[in-house]
């Protein structure tokens, strides 16, 4: 009997020591029946992309509270494409101003961005709707 699970990598790129949000999201996705790989703090884009490939995830979720989102998110997405893994969905969360959200989505760097106050269920729903199992 075949049994596919949604696999999500939750990562914190760059110099940002605040991982409470990332852990809350990881927990919520776990409770929604997904397999969540959490890699901890201070990840480089190369580490994140390599982990995403080895773990064969459907989604990479980046948590960024440092303000470096306009650099880090495109770097991860670009690297995924270069490594032939552009089909992996990139989403992000954190303190990201509205105009940057627009730029990141329109530029194709992130499929969706969840800012503070987003109900956890919305994130779960979004992932379920965008990953074919």
């Amino acid at each position: 009997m075949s049994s596919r699970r949604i696999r999500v990598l939750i990562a914190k790129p760059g110099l940002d020591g605040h991982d409470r949000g990332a852990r809350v999201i990881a927990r919520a996705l776990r409770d929604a029946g997904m397999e969540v790989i959490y890699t901890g703090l201070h990840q480089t884009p190369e580490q994140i992309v390599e982990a995403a490939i080895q773990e064969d995830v459907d989604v990479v979720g980046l948590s960024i509270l440092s303000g470096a989102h306009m650099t880090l998110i495109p770097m991860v997405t670009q690297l995924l494409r270069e490594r032939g893994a552009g089909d992996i969905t990139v989403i992000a969360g954190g303190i990201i101003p509205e105009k940057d959200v627009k730029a990141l989505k329109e530029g194709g760097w992130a499929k969706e961005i969840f800012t503070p106050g987003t109900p956890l269920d919305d994130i779960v729903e979004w992932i379920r709707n965008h990953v074919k199992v």
Partner: protein
Amino acid sequence: MHELVKKLLAGDRRSAARLISIMENNAPEKEELLAQIYPFTGRAHVVGLTGSPGAGKSSLADALTREIRAEGQKVGIIAVDPTSPFTGGALLGDRIRMQEHATDPGVFIRSMGTRGSLGGLAQATRDAIRVLDAFGCQVILVETVGVGQSELDIMYHADTTLVVLTPHAGDHVQVIKAGIMEIADIFVINKADLGGVVQMATSIESMLDLSPRLNGWRPPVLSTVAHEHRGIRELWEAIKRHRACRRDNGAAREREKAHRELLDLVRRQLEELVARHLNARCGLVEQVATRQKDPYTAAREIMAGLLAVGEKAQLAKFARGKEE
């Protein structure tokens, strides 16, 4: 040969990852792919790391990887964490301790959820090991979930099993209990900077004094501090000594492993068959539930029914064979 297998053998990481997912998900193409991979397996040395939660299995795997990489060997790591029996979800956090090797092309790390399996590993772990074996990993470290006393599946998959303990993990009686203490090829007392190591080592050694030696191997008792990389070289040397010792009776062991796996696979297929058969004869379930029939009689009737079905199928096949 399937494209994915070709790419796996050529060292493509994405294909290796995909193939492990196919094994994990029990996808329809799994058996066909495994049949193609199987001839390329059996070369890696599989090292199991088991022990209670927080004993330092991930940190030890990380430290060992550094040691093995220094010799230029390719390393695969499979780290198993528990799946929730309530939601089916899992939080796989073993990579946190292994980030040093995240971008090393000679290291491949994969996290797995147990997905309902109770022996400390996932059901697909054996096939994931095979994928990494064919991928060219010379040493494969398999880290079990944090176990209690009797999750022993690792001993059937690993060539060398490390039981990871910490000082103060119980008194002398804990050490002589059956179960996990019996499966170690090497004992590792990690977090040895905590003190209490001598007492722990002494209890294990005196337990070993009374144990029969298997093929002349007496499990060494080593102490390590994984995050300071202390005792890791000695541990790797001990693993290599054990590998050499194992190689001498490798063929017998391979046969034993094959026998166990076949038994396991046939049993699983039979179980599915029986479950389907039972569903079709739910009247029997009802009779047992309402005390009209005892469970042993009902079980015998089910077996008889199944065997009759099997015989009929055999006869039909025989008849077909004659016609052809």
